């Protein structure tokens, strides 16, 4: 050990006495600190820091590569340093001391990456425990990457005593990071190869989010980290073995045994990681091979067929090893099943159904893919409604083939979208669709809407250590409106009507609210500032519209602001609006949320063929037009010049569209603009109030839609405009 310490000191000196090398971490720290301090307060600091680190850390691996090569070339395999080979000193001691000294230097970068993030995040008022967890993640990711890169560099230098090793090292650095990422991992979706990526932070963009990012893949990170450490050990053992082949030793057998054990250890360490991915791929490819999953081209025009379900009573419990045990009770009116011989339900195939009862008695059932069929005949058909009770369970970590997950429930991280059918949905619905073109699997909802019944729900969740969120209001166990969730009880109950399905979300969430708004935002700690900002702006809009919209009925009561790559599109579900952002920052969310709150969804707008037959889109825009004229003091010209948010006003500004060949939207805007210019804003508001009370929401219309669409033709506008203006004139 005395020799090792002395050798370590010898290796340490040229690194830590080198001014240029010491300037580099300082330079890195300054740039990083500047970057973190310059980050917008509305951007998630973790996500921003991850983006910085994924690139800059990858660049610093070049330093690791160079340092590893120089450490070897300094005195090993150099004729003029042959005297050192003649010393009674093992190559194991020399190589490990060199490795430790270089790694100690590189640890300066790791420490800065972790510590500076913790400091800046703490400065934003984020909980210390959250900061430290993120900081430690950065630190460990840096360290693991440095360990393997350094070991690789040293092995290269041992194998190639020529100066060409610098070129080879450069190529290895580039190939092991950028090239591998762009041309292998991402192009061919070979995310399993991420384990051979030199940069832990560059390998998976999906990990770079505070929500459902690296924390979701802790198991994978531990397994890959274990392998990478073993692999780095193997590289070092290989380097020592090669050097010992060049120099006589009486411990040749021992050396080969160590090398063999290192190889076995690396192979053994790969096994848990390989098995993890084997499970993911087998689940994915089983579905690709499954005949019950249709091709996208074969889906046809017919929508998913569903039937009415009056009540759902769902009890979901997280049990050992993250297995979800669910008891679902469905109250189905017999009338909804007329003409059927069996009750078809859609339940995701990953759940194993253990029991089905109908009317309190166990009944047989059949499963085929995601379809669950229960016979419905005889005595059951005589009853007014069928009470089905299903018990099923399964661990949810459903790989989507593109590095992410369709759904998951791992520890307290939960993303169970309604369209994933984690509870039984009525009818036969396609949860997955094969995409012939790319030979991949896609979520079924991308190609066809999933039909959800308009039902009363009661959902009880147990066994989670932190709070979960759904689109249903949370109540006490006895129906109290207070939120009784407490860690000690670990039970939450949600209850209320739902027509858009029920999604369940869990994560490191914080609730941000504004007393002047009947809504709150659920987000992650490092996005709190953005949430506060959005609420403040939203509150201003809210005050304005509530001042004159008579029948104002908030359509949303809760917002989820989720920065993640696990889900892609924003969704509105039973009064909860979920924003899924990848880039962060404020993209005018307050206006978007106010629109949702005031006007509801417009997802069915694509079904409006002609504006003359339905002017709900221009009417929705006119509500905002009045806002910009009155509250913001903009003129009609200002609005035409783009000084207002185009997204809210597009129906008034977009001329000569296919669906509005007569430019009715533009003329309605002008009509209202002229009336406001003439000082008749109160008449305009009265007319808009009239239409608002008719309903300006534009949901998707399907044959099974519980709510039938009521279009507002242009004639109604003309009539009401004339009446409103004349009445005021007469008055």
């Amino acid at each position, binding site marked *: 050990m005395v020799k090792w310490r002395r050798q370590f000191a010898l290796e340490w000196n040229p690194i830590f006495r080198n001014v240029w090398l010491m300037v580099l971490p300082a330079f890195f720290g300054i740039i990083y600190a500047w970057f973190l301090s310059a980050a917008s307060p509305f951007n998630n600091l973790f996500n921003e820091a991850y983006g910085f680190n994924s690139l800059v850390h990858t660049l610093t691996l070049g330093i690791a590569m160079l340092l590893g090569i120089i450490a070897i070339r300094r005195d090993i395999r150099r004729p*003029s340093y042959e*005297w050192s080979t003649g010393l009674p000193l093992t190559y194991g001691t020399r190589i490990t001391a060199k490795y430790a000294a270089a790694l100690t230097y590189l640890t300066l970068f790791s420490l800065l990456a972790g510590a500076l993030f913790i400091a800046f995040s703490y400065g934003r008022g984020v909980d210390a425990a959250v900061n430290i967890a993120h900081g430690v993640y950065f630190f460990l990711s840096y360290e693991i990457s440095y360990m393997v890169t350094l070991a690789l560099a040293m092995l290269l230098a041992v194998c190639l005593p020529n100066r060409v090793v610098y070129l080879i090292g450069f190529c290895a650095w580039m190939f092991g990071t950028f090239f591998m990422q762009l041309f292998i991992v991402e192009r061919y979706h070979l995310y399993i190869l991420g384990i051979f990526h030199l940069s832990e932070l560059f390998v998976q963009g999906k990990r770079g989010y505070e929500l459902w990012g690296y924390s979701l893949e802790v198991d994978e990170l531990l397994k890959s980290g274990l392998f990478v450490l073993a692999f780095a050990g193997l590289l070092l053992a290989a380097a020592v073995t090669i050097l010992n082949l060049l120099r006589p030793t009486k411990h040749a057998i021992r050396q080969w045994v160590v090398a063999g054990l290192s190889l076995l250890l690396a192979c053994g360490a790969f096994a848990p990681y390989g098995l993890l991915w084997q499970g993911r791929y087998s689940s994915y490819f089983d579905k690709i091979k499954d005949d019950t999953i249709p091709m996208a081209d074969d889906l046809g025009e017919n929508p998913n067929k569903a039937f009415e379900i009056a009540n759902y009573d769902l009890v979901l419990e997280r049990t050992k090893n993250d297995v979800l045990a669910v008891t679902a009770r469905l109250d189905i009116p017999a009338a909804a099943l007329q003409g059927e011989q069996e009750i078809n339900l859609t339940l995701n195939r990953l759940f194993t159904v253990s029991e089905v009862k109908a009317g309190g008695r166990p009944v047989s059932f059949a499963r085929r893919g995601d379809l669950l069929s229960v016979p419905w005949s005889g005595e059951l058909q005589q009853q007014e409604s069928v009470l089905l009770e299903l018990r099923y369970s399964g661990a949810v970590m459903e790989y989507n083939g593109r590095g992410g997950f369709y759904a998951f429930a791992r520890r307290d991280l939960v993303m169970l979208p309604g369209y994933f059918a984690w509870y039984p949905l009525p009818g036969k619905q396609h949860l997955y669709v094969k995409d012939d073109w790319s030979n991949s699997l896609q979520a079924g909802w991308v190609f066809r809407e999933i039909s959800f019944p308009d039902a009363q729900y009661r959902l009880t969740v147990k066994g989670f250590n932190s709070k979960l969120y759904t689109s249903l209001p949370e109540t006490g166990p006895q129906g109290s409106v207070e939120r009784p969730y407490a860690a000690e009880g670990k039970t939450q109950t949600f209850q209320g009507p739902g027509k858009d399905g029920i999604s369940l979300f869990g994560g490191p969430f914080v609730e941000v609210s504004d007393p002047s708004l009947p809504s709150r935002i659920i987000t992650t700690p490092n996005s709190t500032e953005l949430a506060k900002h959005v609420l403040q702006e939203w509150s201003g809009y809210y005050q304005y519209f509530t001042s004159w919209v008579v029948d104002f009925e908030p359509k949303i009561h809760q917002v989820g602001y989720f920065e993640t790559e696990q889900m892609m599109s924003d969704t509105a579900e039973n009064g909860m609006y979920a924003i899924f952002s990848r880039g962060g920052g404020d993209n005018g969310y307050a206006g978007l949320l106010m629109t949702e709150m005031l006007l509801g969804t417009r997802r069915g707008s694509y079904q409006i063929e002609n504006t003359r037959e339905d002017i709900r889109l221009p009417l929705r825009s006119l509500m905002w037009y009045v806002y910009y004229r009155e509250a913001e003091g903009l003129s009609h010209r200002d609005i035409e010049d783009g000084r207002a948010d185009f997204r809210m006003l597009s129906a008034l500004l977009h001329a000569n569209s296919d669906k509005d060949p007569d430019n009715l939207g533009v003329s309605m805007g002008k009509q209202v603009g002229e009336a406001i210019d003439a000082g008749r804003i109160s008449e305009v508001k009265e007319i808009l109030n009239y239409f608002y009370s008719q309903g300006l929401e534009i949901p998707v219309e399907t044959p099974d839609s519980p709510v039938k669409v009521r279009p507002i033709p242009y004639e109604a506008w003309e009539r009401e405009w004339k009446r409103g203006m004349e009445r005021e004139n007469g008055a």
Partner: protein
Amino acid sequence: MIEINHLYKMYRKGHLALDDVNLTLREGMVGLLGPNGAGKTSLMRILATLIRPSSGDALIHGISLKQAEDIRAMIGYLPQQFQVYPQLTGAEFLDYVAVMKGMSDPRKRRAETARLLEEVNLAEKAHKRIRTYSGGMRRRLGIAQALLGSPQVLIVDEPTAGLDPEERVRFRNLLTRFSLGRIVLLSTHIVADIESNCRQIAVLDQGGVRFSGDLAELQASGQGKVWEGIVEEGLFSELDPMSVVSTRRTDEGLLCRVIADAPPLGMEAVAVRPTLEDGYLALLRSRQEEGAMRPW
């Protein structure tokens, strides 16, 4: 004692560096002579356990080269080319080597390094960084590191290369003192390095041992083969340049010393007493002639 038995060394490209070397080296200074490429460095590197022989073995104080770690613990080695970490001071460097040689007591280490620095005349520069040392000073530091720990065997490969005459003398004396009770194997192609203090000499040529014995025996190899005489300048150009050992201009012409079995034609030469260098050159020349006469 070092016993070398049937040692062969063949490098990858088929170059035979050592060809059945058999030697017995006893206590004291042992000179290893030979022209460039004779295999001296290969032999020394094998004895220093830096490389493996292709076959054969050597016993150093009874320990086989296969017990490489044990051999390393008893030898000091100074290679032909010697560089050291430039950022260290001379004292720091020797301290490092001392630790590696198993000297764990810091006080003893300090005393030993100070003594050696004094011996190699580097005491004044002990705390200067090695990057400021001249080539000769580095060489002296090299011998100091080899001497550290009083190894039973010292292997030094052309140690006087690059040293000025004064340093060379100091060097020889240092090695001579150190060789008392030990084996010092000194390789060189400069005969003067060994003629004053080597008890035993081995001559290597083309990988093989051409001679092993003492100074007098080597010197005797030139007996009757060294000729001296005056030649005219016209005749001088016709002499085999490889056979001319030295020339000196005199009033009568060029006084030439030639090694040959008989005096060159046209030269009035007399046989003279060979020096050690003459003996060495005569030995090499006779071997070259033998090689040239070989039909293969």
